[in-house]
Protein backbone atom coordinates (compact mmCIF):
# COMPACT_ATOMS: atom_id res chain seq x y z
CA UNK A 1 0.00 0.00 0.00
CA UNK A 2 1.32 3.42 -0.96
CA UNK A 3 1.01 5.77 1.98
CA UNK A 4 1.55 9.43 2.75
CA UNK A 5 5.22 8.63 3.46
CA UNK A 6 5.81 8.40 -0.29
CA UNK A 7 4.50 11.94 -0.77
CA UNK A 8 6.71 13.18 2.07
CA UNK A 9 9.76 11.51 0.54
CA UNK A 10 9.07 13.19 -2.80
CA UNK A 11 8.44 16.58 -1.15
CA UNK A 12 11.61 16.17 0.93
CA UNK A 13 13.73 15.50 -2.16
CA UNK A 14 12.22 18.43 -4.02
CA UNK A 15 12.84 20.83 -1.12
CA UNK A 16 16.39 19.45 -0.71
CA UNK A 17 16.98 20.32 -4.37
CA UNK A 18 15.54 23.82 -3.81
CA UNK A 19 17.94 24.20 -0.89
CA UNK A 20 21.04 23.13 -2.84
CA UNK A 21 20.12 25.25 -5.87
CA UNK A 22 19.49 28.23 -3.55
CA UNK A 23 22.95 27.88 -2.01
CA UNK A 24 24.59 28.14 -5.43
CA UNK A 25 22.51 31.13 -6.61
CA UNK A 26 24.97 34.03 -6.57
CA UNK A 27 22.29 36.47 -7.75
CA UNK A 28 20.55 36.17 -4.40
CA UNK A 29 22.41 38.13 -1.67
CA UNK A 30 20.55 36.10 0.98
CA UNK A 31 21.17 32.76 -0.68
CA UNK A 32 22.29 30.99 2.49
CA UNK A 33 19.11 32.07 4.29
CA UNK A 34 17.03 30.49 1.53
CA UNK A 35 19.23 27.39 1.53
CA UNK A 36 18.79 26.99 5.30
CA UNK A 37 15.03 27.60 5.22
CA UNK A 38 14.22 25.14 2.42
CA UNK A 39 16.80 22.77 3.88
CA UNK A 40 14.90 22.69 7.18
CA UNK A 41 11.67 22.04 5.30
CA UNK A 42 13.40 19.17 3.45
CA UNK A 43 14.66 17.77 6.76
CA UNK A 44 11.14 17.91 8.18
CA UNK A 45 9.68 15.98 5.24
CA UNK A 46 12.49 13.41 5.05
CA UNK A 47 13.21 12.81 8.74
CA UNK A 48 10.40 14.46 10.72
CA UNK A 49 9.31 11.16 12.26
CA UNK A 50 12.82 10.49 13.60
CA UNK A 51 13.60 13.94 15.02
CA UNK A 52 11.46 13.55 18.12
CA UNK A 53 8.94 16.13 19.33
CA UNK A 54 11.57 18.45 20.77
CA UNK A 55 13.68 18.16 17.61
CA UNK A 56 10.68 19.14 15.50
CA UNK A 57 9.94 22.00 17.88
CA UNK A 58 13.46 23.35 17.45
CA UNK A 59 13.16 22.93 13.68
CA UNK A 60 9.96 25.05 13.68
CA UNK A 61 11.64 27.66 15.83
CA UNK A 62 14.51 27.74 13.31
CA UNK A 63 12.08 28.36 10.44
CA UNK A 64 10.35 31.15 12.38
CA UNK A 65 13.66 32.82 13.26
CA UNK A 66 15.03 32.69 9.69
CA UNK A 67 11.79 34.25 8.42
CA UNK A 68 11.52 36.71 11.33
CA UNK A 69 15.05 38.07 10.89
CA UNK A 70 14.41 38.62 7.20
CA UNK A 71 17.09 36.19 6.05
CA UNK A 72 14.95 34.93 3.20
CA UNK A 73 15.67 36.51 -0.17
CA UNK A 74 14.40 35.77 -3.65
CA UNK A 75 16.41 33.47 -5.84
CA UNK A 76 16.87 34.40 -9.47
CA UNK A 77 17.29 31.24 -11.48
CA UNK A 78 17.87 31.80 -15.18
CA UNK A 79 14.48 31.79 -16.88
CA UNK A 80 12.92 33.01 -20.11
CA UNK A 81 12.38 36.74 -20.67
CA UNK A 82 8.90 38.20 -21.26
CA UNK A 83 9.72 38.56 -25.00
CA UNK A 84 10.88 34.95 -25.25
CA UNK A 85 7.70 33.87 -23.46
CA UNK A 86 5.51 35.73 -25.91
CA UNK A 87 7.34 34.06 -28.79
CA UNK A 88 7.06 30.62 -27.15
CA UNK A 89 3.38 31.21 -26.46
CA UNK A 90 2.90 31.97 -30.15
CA UNK A 91 4.80 28.82 -31.14
CA UNK A 92 3.24 26.32 -28.74
CA UNK A 93 -0.29 27.71 -28.84
CA UNK A 94 -2.95 25.74 -27.00
CA UNK A 95 -0.45 22.91 -26.34
CA UNK A 96 0.66 25.01 -23.37
CA UNK A 97 -2.53 24.18 -21.50
CA UNK A 98 -1.97 20.42 -21.68
CA UNK A 99 0.50 20.03 -18.77
CA UNK A 100 -1.64 22.27 -16.55
CA UNK A 101 -4.76 20.27 -17.44
CA UNK A 102 -2.88 17.01 -16.83
CA UNK A 103 -3.04 17.84 -13.11
CA UNK A 104 -6.84 17.61 -12.72
CA UNK A 105 -7.09 14.70 -15.15
CA UNK A 106 -4.61 12.58 -13.16
CA UNK A 107 -6.24 13.58 -9.85
CA UNK A 108 -9.61 12.39 -11.16
CA UNK A 109 -7.94 9.23 -12.53
CA UNK A 110 -6.44 8.56 -9.09
CA UNK A 111 -9.73 9.06 -7.26
CA UNK A 112 -11.89 7.11 -9.72
CA UNK A 113 -9.55 4.40 -11.08
CA UNK A 114 -6.63 3.88 -8.71
CA UNK A 115 -8.59 4.17 -5.46
CA UNK A 116 -10.63 0.95 -5.89
CA UNK A 117 -7.59 -1.13 -6.94
CA UNK A 118 -6.74 -3.85 -4.43
CA UNK A 119 -3.55 -5.93 -4.72
CA UNK A 120 -3.15 -9.01 -2.53
CA UNK A 121 -5.95 -7.93 -0.20
CA UNK A 122 -4.32 -4.52 0.29
CA UNK A 123 -5.55 -1.34 -1.40
CA UNK A 124 -2.96 0.12 -3.78
CA UNK A 125 -3.36 3.61 -2.27
CA UNK A 126 -4.01 4.41 1.38
CA UNK A 127 -7.79 5.05 1.22
CA UNK A 128 -7.59 7.96 3.67
CA UNK A 129 -4.99 9.80 1.60
CA UNK A 130 -6.14 9.17 -1.97
CA UNK A 131 -6.49 12.84 -2.90
CA UNK A 132 -3.03 13.86 -1.74
CA UNK A 133 -1.42 10.75 -3.25
CA UNK A 134 -3.21 11.45 -6.54
CA UNK A 135 -2.09 15.07 -6.44
CA UNK A 136 1.55 14.03 -5.96
CA UNK A 137 1.27 11.53 -8.81
CA UNK A 138 -0.37 14.22 -10.94
CA UNK A 139 2.51 16.60 -10.18
CA UNK A 140 5.05 14.03 -11.43
CA UNK A 141 3.10 13.11 -14.58
CA UNK A 142 2.42 16.76 -15.40
CA UNK A 143 6.12 17.66 -15.07
CA UNK A 144 7.02 14.79 -17.44
CA UNK A 145 4.35 15.88 -19.93
CA UNK A 146 5.58 19.47 -19.74
CA UNK A 147 9.22 18.56 -20.27
CA UNK A 148 8.52 16.35 -23.29
CA UNK A 149 5.75 18.33 -24.95
CA UNK A 150 7.30 21.78 -24.48
CA UNK A 151 10.93 20.62 -24.78
CA UNK A 152 12.02 22.37 -21.58
CA UNK A 153 15.42 21.75 -19.94
CA UNK A 154 15.56 18.85 -17.46
CA UNK A 155 16.56 21.11 -14.57
CA UNK A 156 13.68 23.53 -15.25
CA UNK A 157 11.08 21.93 -12.93
CA UNK A 158 13.44 22.38 -9.98
CA UNK A 159 14.68 25.84 -10.98
CA UNK A 160 11.22 27.14 -11.88
CA UNK A 161 9.74 25.48 -8.81
CA UNK A 162 12.35 27.25 -6.71
CA UNK A 163 11.55 30.56 -8.40
CA UNK A 164 7.86 30.19 -7.44
CA UNK A 165 8.74 28.86 -3.99
CA UNK A 166 10.87 31.96 -3.32
CA UNK A 167 8.02 34.13 -4.62
CA UNK A 168 5.73 32.64 -1.98
CA UNK A 169 8.53 32.64 0.61
CA UNK A 170 7.77 32.09 4.29
CA UNK A 171 4.02 32.29 3.61
CA UNK A 172 4.26 28.77 2.19
CA UNK A 173 4.90 27.34 5.66
CA UNK A 174 2.33 29.47 7.46
CA UNK A 175 -0.66 27.12 6.93
CA UNK A 176 1.24 24.25 8.53
CA UNK A 177 2.45 26.45 11.39
CA UNK A 178 -1.10 27.62 12.05
CA UNK A 179 -2.36 24.06 12.07
CA UNK A 180 0.26 23.35 14.75
CA UNK A 181 -0.82 26.46 16.69
CA UNK A 182 -4.38 25.13 16.57
CA UNK A 183 -3.15 21.97 18.28
CA UNK A 184 -1.49 24.01 21.04
CA UNK A 185 -4.68 26.06 21.44
CA UNK A 186 -6.64 22.82 21.78
CA UNK A 187 -4.18 21.52 24.37
CA UNK A 188 -4.54 24.69 26.42
CA UNK A 189 -8.34 24.66 26.09
CA UNK A 190 -8.59 28.05 24.36
CA UNK A 191 -11.76 27.04 22.51
CA UNK A 192 -13.49 25.98 25.70
CA UNK A 193 -12.71 29.29 27.41
CA UNK A 194 -14.14 31.32 24.54
CA UNK A 195 -17.16 29.02 24.24
CA UNK A 196 -17.89 29.42 27.94
CA UNK A 197 -17.57 33.20 27.66
CA UNK A 198 -20.08 33.29 24.81
CA UNK A 199 -22.64 31.10 26.56
CA UNK A 200 -22.18 32.74 29.97
CA UNK A 201 -22.54 36.35 28.93
CA UNK A 202 -24.98 36.48 26.06
CA UNK A 203 -28.71 36.04 26.77
CA UNK A 204 -30.35 33.57 24.42
CA UNK A 205 -33.96 33.42 25.57
CA UNK A 206 -35.30 34.31 22.16
CA UNK A 207 -34.89 31.98 19.21
CA UNK A 208 -33.58 34.71 16.92
CA UNK A 209 -30.97 35.76 19.47
CA UNK A 210 -29.79 32.17 19.81
CA UNK A 211 -29.56 31.74 16.02
CA UNK A 212 -27.63 35.00 15.76
CA UNK A 213 -25.22 34.03 18.55
CA UNK A 214 -24.57 30.66 16.93
CA UNK A 215 -24.03 31.93 13.36
CA UNK A 216 -22.07 35.07 14.27
CA UNK A 217 -20.19 33.10 16.91
CA UNK A 218 -19.16 30.46 14.36
CA UNK A 219 -17.87 33.20 12.05
CA UNK A 220 -16.13 35.21 14.77
CA UNK A 221 -14.61 32.17 16.41
CA UNK A 222 -13.36 30.96 13.01
CA UNK A 223 -11.71 34.34 12.46
CA UNK A 224 -9.85 33.93 15.75
CA UNK A 225 -8.92 30.25 15.28
CA UNK A 226 -8.43 30.39 11.50
CA UNK A 227 -10.48 27.26 11.00
CA UNK A 228 -14.19 26.48 11.12
CA UNK A 229 -13.39 22.93 12.19
CA UNK A 230 -11.97 24.22 15.48
CA UNK A 231 -14.97 26.46 16.08
CA UNK A 232 -17.68 23.91 15.28
CA UNK A 233 -17.38 21.49 18.23
CA UNK A 234 -17.04 24.27 20.79
CA UNK A 235 -19.97 26.41 19.67
CA UNK A 236 -22.21 23.51 18.77
CA UNK A 237 -21.66 21.96 22.19
CA UNK A 238 -22.24 25.34 23.85
CA UNK A 239 -25.09 26.85 21.79
CA UNK A 240 -26.17 24.74 18.81
CA UNK A 241 -27.00 21.47 20.53
CA UNK A 242 -28.36 22.51 23.97
CA UNK A 243 -30.24 25.63 22.90
CA UNK A 244 -31.09 25.58 19.18
CA UNK A 245 -31.68 21.83 18.85
CA UNK A 246 -32.79 20.66 22.31
CA UNK A 247 -34.49 23.76 23.73
CA UNK A 248 -36.04 25.24 20.57
CA UNK A 249 -36.37 21.94 18.69
CA UNK A 250 -34.32 22.95 15.65
CA UNK A 251 -33.56 20.45 12.87
CA UNK A 252 -29.99 19.25 13.61
CA UNK A 253 -29.13 18.94 9.89
CA UNK A 254 -30.08 22.55 9.15
CA UNK A 255 -28.48 23.94 12.31
CA UNK A 256 -25.17 22.12 11.81
CA UNK A 257 -24.85 22.52 8.03
CA UNK A 258 -25.61 26.23 8.04
CA UNK A 259 -23.60 26.75 11.23
CA UNK A 260 -20.55 25.27 9.54
CA UNK A 261 -21.09 27.46 6.47
CA UNK A 262 -21.32 30.51 8.73
CA UNK A 263 -17.89 29.46 9.95
CA UNK A 264 -16.70 29.37 6.33
CA UNK A 265 -17.76 33.03 6.03
CA UNK A 266 -15.31 33.66 8.86
CA UNK A 267 -12.61 31.72 6.99
CA UNK A 268 -12.92 34.20 4.12
CA UNK A 269 -12.12 37.08 6.48
CA UNK A 270 -9.16 35.88 8.53
CA UNK A 271 -5.41 36.01 7.85
CA UNK A 272 -5.14 32.87 9.97
CA UNK A 273 -6.59 30.83 7.10
CA UNK A 274 -3.23 31.39 5.44
CA UNK A 275 -3.38 28.89 2.60
CA UNK A 276 -6.54 30.53 1.26
CA UNK A 277 -5.93 34.15 2.18
CA UNK A 278 -2.19 34.89 2.53
CA UNK A 279 -0.50 32.43 0.17
CA UNK A 280 -2.49 33.61 -2.90
CA UNK A 281 -1.39 37.29 -2.60
CA UNK A 282 2.20 36.03 -2.42
CA UNK A 283 1.65 33.74 -5.42
CA UNK A 284 0.06 36.57 -7.41
CA UNK A 285 2.79 39.03 -6.34
CA UNK A 286 0.35 41.49 -4.79
CA UNK A 287 2.02 44.15 -2.61
CA UNK A 288 -0.87 44.15 -0.10
CA UNK A 289 -0.70 41.01 2.03
CA UNK A 290 -4.41 41.36 2.83
CA UNK A 291 -5.62 42.10 -0.72
CA UNK A 292 -7.51 38.81 -1.09
CA UNK A 293 -9.20 39.11 2.30
CA UNK A 294 -10.31 42.63 1.38
CA UNK A 295 -11.78 41.29 -1.86
CA UNK A 296 -13.68 38.60 0.07
CA UNK A 297 -15.17 40.56 3.01
CA UNK A 298 -17.96 42.23 0.97
CA UNK A 299 -19.14 38.75 -0.07
CA UNK A 300 -18.61 37.11 3.33
CA UNK A 301 -20.65 39.58 5.41
CA UNK A 302 -23.91 39.54 3.42
CA UNK A 303 -23.57 35.78 3.06
CA UNK A 304 -23.26 35.47 6.84
CA UNK A 305 -26.49 37.43 7.29
CA UNK A 306 -28.11 35.22 4.64
CA UNK A 307 -27.05 32.13 6.62
CA UNK A 308 -28.62 33.55 9.74
CA UNK A 309 -31.91 34.10 7.91
CA UNK A 310 -31.79 30.67 6.24
CA UNK A 311 -31.25 28.95 9.58
CA UNK A 312 -34.03 30.93 11.26
CA UNK A 313 -36.48 30.14 8.48
CA UNK A 314 -35.64 26.47 7.78
CA UNK A 315 -34.51 25.01 11.10
CA UNK A 316 -37.77 25.43 13.01
Amino acid sequence: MIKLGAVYLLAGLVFAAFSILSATDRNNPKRFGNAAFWGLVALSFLAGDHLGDLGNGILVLGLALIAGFGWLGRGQPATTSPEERRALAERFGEKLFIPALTLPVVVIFGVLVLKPIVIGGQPLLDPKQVTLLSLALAAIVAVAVGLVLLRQPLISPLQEGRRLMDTVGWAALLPQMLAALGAVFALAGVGQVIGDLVTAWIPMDARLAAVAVYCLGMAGFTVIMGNAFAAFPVLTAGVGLPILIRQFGGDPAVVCAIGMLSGFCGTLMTPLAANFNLVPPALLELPDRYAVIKAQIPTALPLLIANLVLMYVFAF
Partner: protein
Amino acid sequence: MWTLLGVAVVVAGFALRFNPLLVVAAAALVTGAAAGLGPVEVLEAFGKAFNENRYVSAALLVLPVVGVVERAGLQERARTLIARFRGVSVGPFLIGYLGFRQITSALGLTSIAGQAQSIRPIVAPMAEGAVEARHGELSAETRQAVRAQAAATDNIGLFFGEDIFIAIGSILLMVGFLNANGVAMDPIHLSIWAIPTAIVAFLIHGLRLWLFDRKLRREAGR
Protein backbone atom coordinates in the same frame (compact mmCIF):
# COMPACT_ATOMS: atom_id res chain seq x y z
CA MET B 1 -8.68 33.72 31.18
CA TRP B 2 -4.90 33.82 30.74
CA THR B 3 -5.21 31.07 28.13
CA LEU B 4 -6.57 33.73 25.78
CA LEU B 5 -3.28 35.63 25.88
CA GLY B 6 -2.05 33.64 22.86
CA VAL B 7 -5.07 34.79 20.85
CA ALA B 8 -4.20 38.38 21.78
CA VAL B 9 -0.63 37.82 20.58
CA VAL B 10 -1.94 36.57 17.22
CA VAL B 11 -4.34 39.49 16.78
CA ALA B 12 -1.74 42.11 17.75
CA GLY B 13 1.04 40.45 15.76
CA PHE B 14 -1.01 40.25 12.55
CA ALA B 15 -2.40 43.78 12.99
CA LEU B 16 1.11 45.21 13.44
CA ARG B 17 2.31 43.11 10.46
CA PHE B 18 5.14 41.35 12.22
CA ASN B 19 6.40 38.29 10.38
CA PRO B 20 3.52 35.81 10.77
CA LEU B 21 5.79 32.79 11.37
CA LEU B 22 7.31 34.58 14.37
CA VAL B 23 3.87 35.69 15.57
CA VAL B 24 2.58 32.12 15.45
CA ALA B 25 5.61 30.71 17.26
CA ALA B 26 5.31 33.41 19.94
CA ALA B 27 1.56 32.77 20.33
CA ALA B 28 2.21 29.05 20.81
CA LEU B 29 4.82 29.71 23.50
CA VAL B 30 2.61 32.25 25.31
CA THR B 31 -0.47 30.00 25.18
CA GLY B 32 1.47 27.04 26.51
CA ALA B 33 3.03 29.10 29.29
CA ALA B 34 -0.39 30.50 30.26
CA ALA B 35 -1.75 26.96 30.45
CA GLY B 36 1.04 26.03 32.84
CA LEU B 37 3.29 24.12 30.45
CA GLY B 38 7.06 24.59 30.60
CA PRO B 39 8.92 25.97 27.56
CA VAL B 40 10.25 22.53 26.60
CA GLU B 41 6.80 20.96 26.85
CA VAL B 42 5.30 23.68 24.66
CA LEU B 43 8.07 23.30 22.10
CA GLU B 44 7.45 19.55 22.08
CA ALA B 45 3.71 19.95 21.61
CA PHE B 46 4.25 22.52 18.85
CA GLY B 47 6.89 20.38 17.10
CA LYS B 48 4.71 17.28 17.27
CA ALA B 49 1.72 19.09 15.80
CA PHE B 50 3.88 20.65 13.08
CA ASN B 51 5.18 17.22 12.09
CA GLU B 52 1.69 15.71 12.04
CA ASN B 53 0.44 18.48 9.78
CA ARG B 54 3.05 18.11 7.04
CA TYR B 55 0.35 17.07 4.59
CA VAL B 56 -0.81 20.70 4.61
CA SER B 57 2.41 21.74 2.86
CA ALA B 58 2.64 18.73 0.54
CA ALA B 59 0.31 20.46 -1.93
CA LEU B 60 3.26 22.74 -2.81
CA LEU B 61 4.42 19.86 -5.03
CA VAL B 62 2.41 21.36 -7.90
CA LEU B 63 4.75 24.38 -8.11
CA PRO B 64 7.42 22.77 -10.37
CA VAL B 65 4.99 22.03 -13.21
CA VAL B 66 3.38 25.45 -12.85
CA GLY B 67 6.87 26.96 -13.18
CA VAL B 68 7.70 24.89 -16.26
CA VAL B 69 4.58 25.90 -18.17
CA GLU B 70 5.10 29.54 -17.17
CA ARG B 71 8.64 29.34 -18.52
CA ALA B 72 7.21 28.16 -21.82
CA GLY B 73 4.73 31.06 -21.95
CA LEU B 74 1.42 29.76 -20.53
CA GLN B 75 0.46 33.04 -18.83
CA GLU B 76 1.04 34.96 -22.07
CA ARG B 77 -0.99 32.39 -24.00
CA ALA B 78 -3.86 32.50 -21.53
CA ARG B 79 -3.91 36.27 -21.83
CA THR B 80 -4.02 36.37 -25.65
CA LEU B 81 -6.46 33.46 -25.88
CA ILE B 82 -9.14 35.28 -23.92
CA ALA B 83 -8.46 38.51 -25.82
CA ARG B 84 -9.50 36.72 -29.03
CA PHE B 85 -12.99 36.27 -27.64
CA ARG B 86 -13.87 39.93 -27.55
CA GLY B 87 -17.32 39.21 -26.21
CA VAL B 88 -15.99 37.71 -22.98
CA SER B 89 -15.71 40.35 -20.31
CA VAL B 90 -14.04 39.79 -16.93
CA GLY B 91 -17.32 39.66 -14.99
CA PRO B 92 -18.99 36.81 -16.88
CA PHE B 93 -15.63 35.03 -17.15
CA LEU B 94 -15.11 34.94 -13.36
CA ILE B 95 -18.80 34.17 -12.77
CA GLY B 96 -18.37 31.16 -15.06
CA TYR B 97 -15.29 30.07 -13.11
CA LEU B 98 -17.21 30.50 -9.83
CA GLY B 99 -19.95 28.18 -11.07
CA PHE B 100 -17.43 25.65 -12.38
CA ARG B 101 -15.55 25.63 -9.06
CA GLN B 102 -18.74 25.25 -7.00
CA ILE B 103 -20.12 22.41 -9.12
CA THR B 104 -16.87 20.42 -9.34
CA SER B 105 -16.28 20.88 -5.59
CA ALA B 106 -19.82 19.68 -4.91
CA LEU B 107 -18.89 16.51 -6.81
CA GLY B 108 -15.90 16.02 -4.51
CA LEU B 109 -13.34 17.25 -7.06
CA THR B 110 -11.87 19.91 -4.81
CA SER B 111 -8.25 19.27 -5.89
CA ILE B 112 -8.70 19.71 -9.63
CA ALA B 113 -8.25 23.47 -9.33
CA GLY B 114 -6.59 25.79 -6.87
CA GLN B 115 -4.61 28.96 -6.29
CA ALA B 116 -1.23 27.57 -7.40
CA GLN B 117 -2.33 25.29 -10.19
CA SER B 118 -5.13 27.31 -11.80
CA ILE B 119 -5.37 30.89 -10.54
CA ARG B 120 -1.74 31.94 -10.99
CA PRO B 121 -1.02 30.27 -14.34
CA ILE B 122 -4.41 30.44 -16.09
CA VAL B 123 -7.39 32.16 -14.46
CA ALA B 124 -5.71 35.39 -13.27
CA PRO B 125 -3.89 35.98 -16.61
CA MET B 126 -7.15 35.30 -18.49
CA ALA B 127 -9.04 37.72 -16.24
CA GLU B 128 -6.35 40.35 -16.85
CA GLY B 129 -6.42 39.58 -20.58
CA ALA B 130 -10.19 40.01 -20.69
CA VAL B 131 -9.89 43.48 -19.18
CA GLU B 132 -6.90 44.42 -21.35
CA ALA B 133 -8.69 43.39 -24.54
CA ARG B 134 -11.39 45.97 -23.86
CA HIS B 135 -9.61 48.73 -22.03
CA GLY B 136 -5.95 48.51 -23.07
CA GLU B 137 -2.94 48.43 -20.75
CA LEU B 138 -3.94 48.11 -17.08
CA SER B 139 -2.78 50.34 -14.25
CA ALA B 140 -0.96 48.58 -11.42
CA GLU B 141 -3.93 49.02 -9.08
CA THR B 142 -6.43 47.61 -11.58
CA ARG B 143 -4.16 44.64 -12.30
CA GLN B 144 -3.87 43.89 -8.58
CA ALA B 145 -7.61 44.27 -8.07
CA VAL B 146 -8.33 41.82 -10.92
CA ARG B 147 -5.88 39.28 -9.51
CA ALA B 148 -7.31 39.58 -5.99
CA GLN B 149 -10.83 39.03 -7.38
CA ALA B 150 -9.66 35.92 -9.23
CA ALA B 151 -8.15 34.49 -6.04
CA ALA B 152 -11.23 35.38 -3.99
CA THR B 153 -13.50 33.73 -6.57
CA ASP B 154 -11.58 30.46 -6.28
CA ASN B 155 -11.90 30.44 -2.47
CA ILE B 156 -15.61 31.29 -2.49
CA GLY B 157 -16.35 28.67 -5.15
CA LEU B 158 -14.45 26.03 -3.20
CA PHE B 159 -15.91 26.80 0.25
CA PHE B 160 -19.53 26.99 -0.89
CA GLY B 161 -19.34 23.95 -3.12
CA GLU B 162 -17.36 21.38 -1.17
CA ASP B 163 -19.86 21.12 1.68
CA ILE B 164 -22.43 19.66 -0.71
CA PHE B 165 -20.20 16.60 -1.21
CA ILE B 166 -21.10 13.98 1.41
CA ALA B 167 -17.60 12.64 2.06
CA ILE B 168 -15.86 15.96 2.68
CA GLY B 169 -14.03 16.52 5.98
CA SER B 170 -16.44 19.08 7.43
CA ILE B 171 -19.47 16.79 6.91
CA LEU B 172 -17.64 13.86 8.50
CA LEU B 173 -16.74 16.12 11.44
CA MET B 174 -20.38 17.13 11.92
CA VAL B 175 -21.64 13.54 11.69
CA GLY B 176 -18.99 12.43 14.18
CA PHE B 177 -19.82 15.24 16.59
CA LEU B 178 -23.57 14.59 16.43
CA ASN B 179 -23.12 10.84 16.88
CA ALA B 180 -20.92 11.42 19.91
CA ASN B 181 -23.74 13.52 21.36
CA GLY B 182 -26.44 10.96 20.71
CA VAL B 183 -27.93 12.43 17.52
CA ALA B 184 -27.94 9.97 14.61
CA MET B 185 -27.40 11.82 11.33
CA ASP B 186 -27.26 10.68 7.74
CA PRO B 187 -24.58 12.78 5.95
CA ILE B 188 -26.89 13.34 2.98
CA HIS B 189 -29.11 15.66 5.05
CA LEU B 190 -26.12 17.83 5.90
CA SER B 191 -25.12 18.04 2.24
CA ILE B 192 -28.64 18.95 1.14
CA TRP B 193 -28.77 21.79 3.64
CA ALA B 194 -25.52 23.19 2.24
CA ILE B 195 -27.26 23.85 -1.08
CA PRO B 196 -29.29 26.99 -0.14
CA THR B 197 -26.15 28.76 1.11
CA ALA B 198 -24.26 27.69 -2.02
CA ILE B 199 -26.92 29.28 -4.22
CA VAL B 200 -26.92 32.50 -2.18
CA ALA B 201 -23.09 32.58 -2.31
CA PHE B 202 -23.22 32.30 -6.11
CA LEU B 203 -25.77 35.12 -6.33
CA ILE B 204 -23.92 37.47 -3.97
CA HIS B 205 -20.46 36.94 -5.38
CA GLY B 206 -21.78 36.86 -8.95
CA LEU B 207 -23.45 40.23 -8.37
CA ARG B 208 -20.20 41.60 -6.97
CA LEU B 209 -18.23 40.37 -9.99
CA TRP B 210 -20.78 41.98 -12.31
CA LEU B 211 -20.48 45.26 -10.40
CA PHE B 212 -16.68 44.97 -10.49
CA ASP B 213 -16.84 44.59 -14.28
CA ARG B 214 -19.15 47.58 -14.58
CA LYS B 215 -16.83 49.71 -12.42
CA LEU B 216 -13.85 48.83 -14.63
CA ARG B 217 -15.87 49.82 -17.69
CA ARG B 218 -16.84 53.16 -16.19
CA GLU B 219 -13.25 53.89 -15.27
CA ALA B 220 -12.12 53.03 -18.78
CA GLY B 221 -14.85 55.17 -20.29
CA ARG B 222 -13.71 58.20 -18.39
